């Protein structure tokens, strides 16, 4: 079994130490950092995502794999940056103003951090201004908004409207989630995506970061 295959399999099993060792080994063997990233780590996470959807593995296993991937990314990051390949992004998360429910938002944060993203968690009851201020000052690429109440959902529209007012809408991607939310509502308020769970939120952020 070659190094990249071993690396992929260890990452899928969540063996962070082995992933770090094998990533270094692959680098030492002369593998291109982008090849290690795409073939072993990203490819391995695609398998993890597939297995999760098929209920062959569960959320903790996804998180362990994501953390293991992170261990490999720590070694690849300087090399990728040197090659001019962006590797990481920052996400601002929060439960919108008037809403105190944060379990779903916290789970998204855990999974994003596990996958190697930087997460700026603004907590609960977050005003539109606070979302935008943080996103701009932290140079975030994605804002993740959560709401449990139908009465607080409209705040999400206000956040996006404020981004337009401040002329930063094009620099940001808005993802939304929460029990009363839907794809249709997300489209209606001009959000970029609706995510029905934490794993889909991570996939979504990865897409946006990649596109960015």
């Amino acid at each position, binding site marked *: 079994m070659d190094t990249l295959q071993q690396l992929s399999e260890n990452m899928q099993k969540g063996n962070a130490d082995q992933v770090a060792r094998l990533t270094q080994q692959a680098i030492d063997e002369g593998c291109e950092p982008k090849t290690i990233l795409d073939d072993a780590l990203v490819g391995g996470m695609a398998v993890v995502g597939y297995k999760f959807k098929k209920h062959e593995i569960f959320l903790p296993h996804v998180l362990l794999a994501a953390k293991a991937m992170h261990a490999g990314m720590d070694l690849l990051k300087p090399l990728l940056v040197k090659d001019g390949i962006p590797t990481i992004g920052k996400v601002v998360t929060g439960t919108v103003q008037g809403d105190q429910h944060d379990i779903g938002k916290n789970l998204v944060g855990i999974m994003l951090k596990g996958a190697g993203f930087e997460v700026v968690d603004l907590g609960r009851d977050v005003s539109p201004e606070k979302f935008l201020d943080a996103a701009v000052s932290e140079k975030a690429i994605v804002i993740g908004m959560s709401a449990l109440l139908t009465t607080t959902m409209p705040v999400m529209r206000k956040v996006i409207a404020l981004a337009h007012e401040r002329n930063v809408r094009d620099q940001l991607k808005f993802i939304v989630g929460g029990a009363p939310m839907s794809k249709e509502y997300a489209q209606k308020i001009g959000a970029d995506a609706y995510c*029905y769970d934490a794993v889909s939120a991570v996939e979504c952020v990865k897409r946006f970061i990649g596109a960015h």
Partner: protein
Amino acid sequence: MRPTVRFLSDQLIEQIIAEARELLCKLGVEIHNDAVLALLGDHSARIDNATKRAYFTPDIIDRSLQAAPDSFRLYDSLGNEAVDLSDMNVNFTPGSSAINILDHESQHSRRPTSKDYVKYTKLMASLEHIASQSTAMVPADVHEMISDSYRLYLSLMFCEKPVVTGAFTIEAFEIMKELQLAVRGSEKELAECPLTIFSCCPTAPLKWSNVTSQNVIDCARYSIPVEYISMPLSGFMAPITLVGSLVQHTAETLSGLAISQLSNPGSPVLYGGSPAVFDVRYETTPMGDIGTMMMDCAYSEIGKHLGLPTQAYIGLSDAKLLDAQAGFETSMGATLAALSGINNIAGPGMLDFESCFSLEKLVLDNEICAMVKRMVAGIEPKEDFPSLPRFEELLREEHLLISEHTMKYLKEEVYLPGPTIDRANRSRWQEEGSRTLGARAAEQVEALVTQHQPVGLSETVLGDLTSLMETEARRHGMSRLPEIR
């Protein structure tokens, strides 16, 4: 602690048993089988040959109870232990002998064919929470005189799990025994490692037919386990009260116990039944009625009090489709049965007063069985004390998703059901097609049947089984068996 439920006090149990014994001794039991009457007569029962009544004695009853084993095990067709019928152990088996199948495509009930039966056995092979198979349906495309043995044949050909079955005639016992001997190799092996349980039913009130009583002694001769299926109908063929019906159930079951234990002391038996209240509006025998379920649990308590393993037809429904009624009646029954410690709970897959089988329901019921088994495993500490370190970890890490403790006990503590049970949030459910329970269950049936692997019996044994069955079919005028491959 294992959770339990009780419906009867010890005092009431003893009173019911005493009343039942009095019925057996003073009213007697009508038995339409001369050999059984002679057997009882040989053991000092008074026999009235004109009315075919046998009047039991306290001694016969006591000796039968002493002789009957308090537990036994079933073994699969490869000889592996599969079902432990002891103490408060709970095992599930599908309902049996449905004359119809619920066709998923048409949603109509129709007569089952051999192909339906094969699909069922293949499905049973993969349902891990249902420990044994039953001869669940009666295929309508074979001669009726082989419809009992043919079910057993198909079950053995496609699934290794032990089989709860029964003979419809006296003659059928022979071929059904031979099929088992073909698998086990000898009478000794069959006696030591039982492969089947035969259901034997007295007739309410206090009667045994020629066929069923003969089946009891034939099974006893080969130490093939028997489950007694007494069926008092409260308010019709039994007293309206649950206690009165339990007295009748006890008397009928003890009479069956005596027949087997006098034939072969120590022969394995299950203290079973299928009592029901009688619905005086529809003239039906609802298995999903709460009174029916209470009787099942109560007679199991009586059986356990007598030191016998127990069985019941509970965990099934009278609904005609896989609807909410099917779910709630099945779940309620299975839950109560497990809390009562009924050792062999028969019912999964069954609808319509035990007359219609649904493969889709069987898949759903497999999940019910799993949840119920999780329930009776109870709540036990698992490295929970002292609690402080765990909560320190929670506060430090901000979650316990990948804590060692979580990873160690996740599967043991939390039963995660298969795809038949909808646990997705609404958006994901919609994205995955907004499928109904029926659609999910049907998809799971097809997926599991497709994954079926051939049984581990040798080609020689499989050939012997087919040869025996073909010979039996020819005896009844069928030149060939239906195509099943």
